């Protein structure tokens, strides 16, 4: 038998030549490094979350969560800001969900190829890459200046719609894509139209990932800032802080945190900042947890299988 150039060709021993020892060591070192990075990420998250709780715990109180902010004196709260965050969130969802759903259905179920589809996908991907501050300025131009609404909740919501549309479209497409084609074939084979198939078969099967995605994106909308600063504004009305009109100036909690840091004149910036940051974090946690549970519950209910 020809002896190969690589060691240890043909040697009957199963003992480990030095080359293998080094390679095995390199393998173990790199594996260890990878584990380090992964654990590092988890630990870092724990550190950040823990620190936020540590900082903000003292600031939380019923008063803090419900009282209006103060301009100059200490003791302000974030009540109206929380209201505005939810208000804008709901408003944004009212616009974004139908459009994203319909576009997603169109892209996933109807137009499988073609120029129009390519352009739509290109625009969606591009919008997703545009920084939200740029979107905010766009909103400023269109809603505040052009349409003359001044700072308004509606302007903010519409801006956020454009910001989050690509993400929600992708969620819809993936949710619909997770439904096996066999379901569609079975339905159409029974004589249903495509629309009937989509509404009665595909969407119910896709409900779990859809809702999960919507809730997760809601979490992101709740924390959105850059696009809102110059569209929904930096203040709440003193006389009517819980204004339900579409056009009221609506500072959200996230914007308030930034405002407190950068412009505010109150002496207890640290307290308000810590408290606001913690409340924001808790809201995001709640949204994430809700997304998981809803996803699982809906999946079991609508399809009888756990996703």
């Amino acid at each position: 038998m020809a002896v190969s150039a690589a060691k240890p060709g043909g040697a009957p021993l199963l003992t480990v030549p030095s080359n293998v020892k080094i390679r095995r060591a390199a393998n173990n070192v790199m594996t260890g490094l990878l584990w380090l990075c992964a654990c590092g990420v988890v630990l870092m998250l724990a550190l950040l979350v823990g620190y936020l709780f540590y900082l903000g715990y003292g600031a939380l109180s019923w008063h803090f969560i419900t009282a209006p902010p103060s301009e100059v004196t200490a003791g302000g709260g974030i009540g109206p800001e929380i209201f505005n965050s939810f208000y804008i969130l709901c408003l944004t969802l009212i616009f974004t969900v139908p459009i994203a759903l319909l576009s997603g259905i169109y892209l996933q179920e109807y137009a499988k190829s073609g120029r129009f589809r390519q352009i739509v996908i290109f625009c969606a991907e591009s919008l997703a890459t545009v920084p939200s501050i740029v979107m905010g300025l766009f909103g400023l131009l269109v809603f505040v200046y052009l349409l003359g609404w001044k700072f308004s909740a509606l302007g903010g919501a519409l801006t956020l719609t454009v910001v989050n549309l690509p993400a929600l479209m992708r969620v819809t497409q993936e949710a619909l894509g997770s439904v096996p084609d066999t379901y569609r074939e079975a339905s159409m084979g029974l004589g249903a139209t495509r629309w009937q198939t989509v509404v009665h078969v595909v969407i119910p099967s896709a409900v779990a990932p859809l809702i999960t995605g919507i809730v997760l994106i809601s979490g992101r909308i709740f924390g959105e800032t850059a696009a809102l600063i110059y569209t929904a504004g930096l203040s709440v009305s003193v006389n009517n802080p819980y204004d339900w009109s579409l056009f009221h100036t609506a500072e959200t909690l996230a914007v308030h945190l930034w405002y407190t840091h950068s412009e505010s004149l109150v002496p207890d910036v640290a307290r308000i900042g810590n408290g606001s940051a913690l409340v924001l974090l808790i809201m995001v946690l709640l949204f994430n947890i809700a997304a998981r549970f809803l996803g699982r519950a809906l999946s079991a209910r609508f399809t009888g299988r756990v996703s």
Partner: protein
Amino acid sequence: MVEAPPVTQDKVVAENVNVYYGSFHAIKNASLKIPAKSVTALIGPSGCGKSTFLRAIDRMHDLTPGARVTGKVLLDGQDIYAPEVDPVVIRHRIGMVFQRPNPFPKSIYENVAYGPRIHGERNRKVLDATVERSLRQAALWDEVKDRLHHSALGLSGGQQQRLCIARAVALNPEVLLMDEPASALDPIATSKIEDLIGELKNEYTVIIVTHSMQQAARISEFTAFFHLGEIVEHDTTSNIFTRPKEKRTEDYITGRFG
């Protein structure tokens, strides 16, 4: 039908090998002796465990979480499952060719040189010689010698499989395991591979899993029949096909089940 060669020392011996996937008992107490420089075919209906057994020979189950192998597999008398053995060394001495060709998205040269390189060979001249030797042994050299640095993905299916064979023999293994190497290929490519195996057995001990009895009869000297995770019978190929001892073997050979 290939005539059985004179008896030589057994290259690979499996003793009471069991393979479990979780709680599923896939291979039950399999014992087998493989003579050196011969072709042994593993046949049996699909799902009977022939590929599972084959993979146990070069410790490929180490890569599957949840898989467990008990028993011994002796290579030249030494147990490859002994705790101090590094599977990397085993896989240098036992090569494997898979059912579907899986060339790396690299050049033809780099594919063949991959094995020697990772095991430490750096000398360019040696690598060049090894690549040529391996490609010749795989009957591929003439077809690719002018485009060694082109991507391997540009080759046809049959050529890719021969490339995978070249890649495996580049390490000069002592044993070559082949898991249905021609099942994804057309008849012409298949017969080229079969001719190749006839040549390879002069250098290497070949164990081949095949679902085609005709193929086993054509190319192997010894055959083992698997059924439901057990080795039912193992003998020279001519005996298995003309004078099977077990009824199950006879039923399979005559096509009563498959």
